[in-house]
């Protein structure tokens, strides 16, 4: 299946020409964008952020940005779509922090929420909070990539959905 066909599915509505032609002519960009989804949602080396946790954070980001309709890629490439136990609290964007969670996870939720919604306010304190709770520098970068890459993907789909017929 071509990347264009996958994107057509993710966009979820028919595109108007000449936009459809223009978009599908950029097959290489679409292909690489799909690879990016996979690299952050189901990486070979997930570190502290398991595939399930990444999926839950993906749904959290989509909900926070009011972009669930543009979260087709998260649904398609996420390791899971239905969450149970504590992952429900991660996927549920109305839970800012929860008392039963380990401190590193609450620091990760704070980082995710701030970077998703209030990017301009991000500061060193967010990373320091993660480090103080035992998150390695490698895992800080992996979390940043997850949030940042999904922010790209959501905006891509929101933008493409406006090219509707």
């Amino acid at each position: 299946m071509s990347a264009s066909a996958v994107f057509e599915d993710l966009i979820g509505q028919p595109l108007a020409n000449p936009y459809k032609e223009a978009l599908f002519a950029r097959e290489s960009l679409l292909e690489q964008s799909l690879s990016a989804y996979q690299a952050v949602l189901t990486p070979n080396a997930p570190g502290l952020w398991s595939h399930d946790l990444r999926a839950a954070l993906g749904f959290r980001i989509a909900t926070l940005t009011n972009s669930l309709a543009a979260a087709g890629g998260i649904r398609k490439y996420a390791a899971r779509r239905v969450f149970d136990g504590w992952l429900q609290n991660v996927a549920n964007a109305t839970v800012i922090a929860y008392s039963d969670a380990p401190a590193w996870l609450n620091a990760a939720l704070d980082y995710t929420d701030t970077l998703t919604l209030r990017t301009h306010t991000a500061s060193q304190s967010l990373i320091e909070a993660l480090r103080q709770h035992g998150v390695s520098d490698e895992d800080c970068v992996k979390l940043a990539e997850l949030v940042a890459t999904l922010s790209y993907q959501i905006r891509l789909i929101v933008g493409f959905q406006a090219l509707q017929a």
Partner: protein
Amino acid sequence: MTQETLILVKEFRPTPVSWRPYVTPVDLDRATPEQLEAMKVTPSNRKVSYYTLTLAHDPEILTVRSPLFNDIMYHRGGLSRANRELAATQTSVVNGCFYCASVHAARYIQLSKAPDDIEILFARANDQQTDVQKKAITAVAQQLSRATPTLHKQDVEALAAQNLSAEEIVDLIFSTALFGWANRLMHSLGQAVEN
């Protein structure tokens, strides 16, 4: 990393700035083969930025990200190079990324010879933009960069009304979305500092 005195940059400006990470970047001499490959390090090319060394902590996505970034910003045809930089700068202003804004504003000025456009962006005074096509481009970049991104059919029609082709509009979406990614990395993993 040697100790150095850092002077933070806390303003938007189109002049050169540097960037330093909050985390310890990968040590090039201890990098794994996968990290070296992701950074495109070769025996003859061992000059790697702090930014790339930082992102090398996650070589899997870096391997995808670097070529995608270059393809979106530099591929031939479609939106002009200058207008891709304009969208990148506008997005960086929305996201408060001083480093990205500086780099891409400078590139825009170099390509367009229109420093006034950047002054308008940095002053957040887009209403003062008299070029209707540039105004439409920055308006869409702003909308798509907000915390709750939006773009509607009528926004696309407004771009088309300003003589932007379908290819140009698609490229505008790509370059704006791309900086939603880049800004979140640059602005949360480190900070802009004086050279």
